[in-house]
């Protein structure tokens, strides 16, 4: 059974990769590929030449767009027992290994890399999804009651409920009772949506098609939390819903996206009734593969009329 599934997934993926090769050449190149991060709240101070006021930060000169997200794969272990082996280990994981030490503490370079990546990850929380990406898939935007990023962080409950305006928009513009409802949200990382949507969505659509499933009107939720699925479910009453949402940013990547899925989402669902695929990004589950996989899971949900811990995968 499981083998059969894998085979199906592989087939869909292979086909998609072919197609995507063609599509991505035309697609506008998203900003995040260079690591550029837009700020949702206040824009960062422009580089200033004549910083006068006392405690202003040192002038920033943005020559290099941003720290490269690919960790440097060099090692500092001075005399490894098996030198080639070390390269093998390093190439198998993005984790910070082979870093060596001074006494029991890390080397200065390693320590500074960590601090640099922390600074970048903190920024990612305040990013905003690029309108071009949303336009590419004709996603219109509704908001939750999050209000602003600071509040979003402190009040997850508000990120679970759409504004009245949002509810009205869904009622006006979305197909009711679809078989599959696709929803996209920034969640804790807008950069994750920017980086992965263009690969996940087409692959998901193709996968749905291959299972003969139909989908409603997709849209974007700004300031969403996972449980916003329930509110959407209440309004649109889909058979199954998938929410593509940015995970909290990590240090190696701020581009990690999750797909949370639910059979007949309604108010009062508990977490264990949902199913998730996480770590969708280049170094994790590739977005194309994920799209196909999501389609498979959604079709299983429809078949078994269940999701979460009750779903047999």
């Amino acid at each position, binding site marked *: 059974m*499981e083998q059969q599934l894998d085979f199906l997934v592989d087939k869909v993926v292979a086909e998609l990769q072919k197609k995507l090769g063609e599509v991505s050449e035309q697609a506008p190149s998203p900003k995040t590929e260079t690591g550029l991060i837009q700020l949702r709240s206040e824009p960062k101070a422009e580089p200033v030449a004549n910083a006068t006021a006392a405690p202003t930060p040192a002038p920033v000169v943005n020559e290099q767009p941003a720290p490269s997200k690919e960790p440097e794969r060099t090692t500092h*272990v001075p*005399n*490894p*027992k*098996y*030198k080639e*082996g*070390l390269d*093998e*280990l*390093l190439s*198998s*994981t*993005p*984790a*910070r*290994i*082979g*870093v*060596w*030490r001074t*006494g*029991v*503490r*890390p080397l200065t370079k*390693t320590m500074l890399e*960590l601090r640099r*990546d*922390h600074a970048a*990850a*903190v920024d*990612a*929380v305040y990013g905003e999804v690029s309108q071009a990406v949303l336009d590419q898939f004709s996603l219109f935007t509704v908001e939750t009651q999050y209000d602003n990023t600071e509040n979003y*962080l*402190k*009040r*997850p*409950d508000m990120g679970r409920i759409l504004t009245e305006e949002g509810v009205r928009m869904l009622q006006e513009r979305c197909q009711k009772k679809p078989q599959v409802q696709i929803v996209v949200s920034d969640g*804790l990382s807008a950069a994750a949506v920017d980086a992965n949507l263009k690969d996940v969505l087409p692959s998901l659509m193709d996968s749905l098609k291959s299972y003969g499933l139909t989908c409603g009107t997709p849209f974007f939720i700004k300031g969403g939390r996972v449980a916003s699925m329930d509110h959407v479910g209440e309004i649109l009453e889909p058979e199954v819903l998938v929410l593509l949402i940015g*995970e*909290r*940013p*990590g*240090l*190696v*990547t701020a581009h*990690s996206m999750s797909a949370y899925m639910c059979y007949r989402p309604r108010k009062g669902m*508990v*977490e*264990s009734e949902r199913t998730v695929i*996480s*770590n969708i*990004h280049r*170094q*994790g*589950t590739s977005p194309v593969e994920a799209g196909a996989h999501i389609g498979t899971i959604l079709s299983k949900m429809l078949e078994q009329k269940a999701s*979460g*811990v009750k779903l047999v*995968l």
Partner: protein
Amino acid sequence: MNTKTTVLGQTYQFRDLKEVFAKANEDKSGDQLAGIAAADSRERVAAKQVLADLTLADIRNNPMVPAEEDEVSRVIEEGINEKIYNEIKNWSVAELREYILSHQAGDNELKRISRGLSSEMIAATAKLMSNLDLITAASKIKVVTHANTAIGQRGVLASRVQPNHPSDNVQGIKASLYEGLSYGIGDAVIGINPVIDTADSVKDILNMTKDVMTKFDIPTQNCVLAHVSTQMRAIRNGAPADLIFQSLAGSEKGNNAFGIDVALLDEADELMRKEGTSYGPNFWYFETGQGSELSAEAHHGMDQVTMEARCYGLARKYNPFIVNTVVGFIGPEYLYDSRQVIRAGLEDHYMGKMHGLPMGCDVCYTNHMKVDQNDMDNLGILLSSAGVNFVIGVAMADDVMLNYQSTSFHDIAAFREVMGLRPAPDFEKWLEKMGIMENGRLTAKAGDPTIFM
């Protein structure tokens, strides 16, 4: 039961026990989010004052989540030793705090009295303790557990090596595992959080870790932290699991959100006794952390410290090998900044130890909190001084799958060196055999993962 007091000329009348318990807490964003926190420090002190004078019987006779409605409450109730409880039921919370901190109460005395206490009573004492009180009390309690090997002895700081990978690539997991072992990390458990929650994938990782343990004769235990039902399926399919894992919440409803209940935990417990691959008698690995009940809207209007204590009440039913509070894991909505994370880490460790549990702590934070690595250094040292059983080791503290920062292999080596602590005895012998450690210090070979290739 008196719920009224006067502080600095102002009189405070609290509605019920829940309100007293919530407002007596140190400041936490999670309690604010729940709308139950004290309005200011005066009200907080008033609540603490009221709490100090309540008797243990007051707490037991006014259940905040009645046992008829909640199975976690039932487990806690049923666990109370009536004989011991009857000896102390007229003590005030203040008296209990003073007894716990007194020289008269050593390791044995605290373990005995623990059996007469409910989780709520233990939480009450934590609310009346300063950070140093929490450290002082916890450091008196020694909890030794055994699966393949023993940890928890005095002078020992054990560690979980956490070699997670963003796509569960078995070679990638092995790479981080080798790195960790080469720093002397992994005596508590080799524990992997899988991205893919299927029995097959879990089995692959259990097999790989078991192979490494066998090949190098490593005295430790393996565990894959998938949902308990997935692990059970893997074990039934023949996967070698020394420990079984599950996250716990402090209410039935919270556990429901996690997809578990007491019946399922009982079933898993039974399975481990029959098919677990370690010697035992301790087979469980539990994780907890303040805020998860509120996140699932399953907190019954109660504060997160008390809810956390109730997780320990549930955990102690199963005599776990290790319990880990993942203290800063979720985000700023529950623990806003370093001050709150540090406080919560010390509270959880103390409350767990007072339940007689083998407490460890994932000293950690997410990138959306106002915390950084320096704060982790601080909490790590504080917990080492409090006698924490184990902490978490991640390559350079950066977990590339869970997207948060914990403590690094280097950090644990430093905690041991600075605090004069050692790895678990069997593991230290093994490290010596491998040439990684000598007289409790890392050798020149340490930090080279290729010694395992």
